Structures are given as C-alpha cells and as structure tokens.
C-alpha cells in the first residue's frame, strides 16, 4: 500500500510545483505536505502496470488524449454552428449507449469522453455500465456514439488493466 501512496503523493507534489512555478524550499515543503494530504484522502490503489505493457499503454494514452482534443475542438465548433443556425434542427433524446467497460474507472472515463463528444452529454450510468446520453441529434448519434465508444473502450482496455469489454448490451 506504501508504493501507490508515495507515487500519488509525488505526482501531486510535482503538479503543485508545476502550477506554482516556484521551487523555493518553503514551496517544495508545501507541495510535499499537500501531496501527502491529498494522497491520504484519495487512498490510491496499485493498478498492476507491468513494464512489458508500458509502451503500449503510453501509446494508447497518447491516442486517447488526441481523441479527446479532437472532440473538444469538434464539439465546440459543432455546437457553435448549431447555435448560430437560424432555426436549429434539434432532434433531442436520451439514448442508451453501452460503455463496454467492466471497471468503474473505465465507465467513468467513457462517460467523460462521451460528454466531450459533439452533441452528447451523459446524464446517468446504470449498474450494467450503460451510459444514458442526451443527444442533440438522436438519430445521428445512435450510430456515431456507439462506434466511437467501441474505439474508446479498446484504448481504455490497453490503458487500464482489467477494463476490457464485458458490459451487457442495452
């Protein structure tokens, strides 16, 4: 249990130093204290990452971040265009989209990524990992969201151990 705690505390302390941009002794001490405090509150658990799968996981993280960034740009432009349309063609609805992930972290990240995607916003998650997603264009999202979710799930299964496909279909 010490290993994950130390890693989380060190990462949080590093983040504090990066954000403050100050490496004076007092600030380093404050960073270590804050890192330990937040790590104690979070109680992190080890994820069992082996060195053998690390390159694949790092590549998957890079692809996942690129996908997220693409969705941020795409959704900003798509919704802005919809708002500026004289009569927005809204066909809203809440669709059930299977997350395809077994772990809670995988489901949470899927919900986050789906909420970033253009015209989609997760409003509920059930115990089977189905994401109930509010869509601005329900007809188009039916196919688009499911296909993208499968791709996300494949990436997440490479990033998070024991998070492969396995959720029930809606």
């Amino acid at each position, binding site marked *: 249990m010490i290993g994950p705690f130390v890693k989380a505390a060190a990462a949080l302390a590093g*983040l504090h130093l*990066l*954000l403050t*941009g100050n490496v004076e002794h007092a600030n380093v001490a404050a960073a270590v204290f804050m890192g330990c405090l937040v790590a104690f509150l979070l109680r992190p658990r080890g994820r069992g990452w082996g060195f053998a799968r690390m390159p694949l996981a790092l590549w998957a993280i890079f692809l996942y971040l690129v996908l*997220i960034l693409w969705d*941020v*740009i795409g*959704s*900003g*432009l798509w*919704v*802005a265009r*919809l*708002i*500026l349309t004289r009569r*927005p063609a*809204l*066909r*809203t*609805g*809440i*669709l*059930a989209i299977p997350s395809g992930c077994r772990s*809670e972290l995988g489901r949470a990240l899927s*919900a*986050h990524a789906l*909420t*970033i995607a*253009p*015209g989609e*916003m*997760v*409003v*509920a*998650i*059930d*115990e089977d990992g189905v994401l*109930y997603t*509010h869509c*601005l264009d*329900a*007809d188009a999202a039916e196919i688009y969201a499911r296909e993208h979710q499968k791709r996300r799930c494949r990436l997440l299964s490479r990033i998070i151990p024991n998070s492969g496909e396995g959720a029930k279909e*809606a």
Partner: protein
Amino acid sequence: MKEELVAALGILLVVVGTSFSVISVVGYLRLPDVYTRLHATGKVSVFGIVLFLIAAVAIGAVDAGRAVVLGLFLVLAGPVLSHSIGSAAYRIGIPMRGAVRDDLAARGSTGREETTAGEQAEER
C-alpha cells in the same frame, strides 16, 4: 517582427475565444431547455477558454506547462459539471422539450431502479 506576429496571433486568439464565449451565452438564451443549454455552456465556453489559454501562452502571460495543466483541468472538470447538472435536472423531473426518444424513462418504466455511484458503493 516575430514578436509582433506572435502578439497578433495572441490577440486573434483572444478575439476568437471571446466570440466563442459570447456564442455560448447566445446558446444559453436560444436553446429550449436545460439539457440543450448545457451543451452550449459546457462545450462552446470550454473551447473558448482553451483558446484564451493558448493566447495567454502566445502573449507570454502564462507558462506553457501551466497552461497545459490548466487546460487539462478544464477539459476534465467541464464535462463533469455538465453531467452533474444534467443528471440533477433529470432526477428532479425537468422535462426535455421536443425530445424524440428517452431510453432512460423507458428503462425506469420496466421497473429497474437507477442506482447512483454512492448507492452502489453502499451495496458493496
């Protein structure tokens, strides 16, 4: 010359970012219900603020590393905020205007109760 170009790029990004922020407010006024409005405020404004951050880096007001971390926080927290408000709105029964489909209501009518993350943790 190079510094002037970078400054001009920064000003351009500020103008575009401001435009997106204004569009998100227009969306808040134009769109019909809380769920569609969350799309406007949660996505367009986040995109606008990301542009502001890039502009701040170009002008030299913020370090690139700090801007990346702030951008990541923003992209991480924005959708969570939209989800929380949307989920709360659905739970207290705020209706969707002109919705063509509602799978969550259909699921509720089959007798299966929706459980929150907290309730699932308690069950475990």
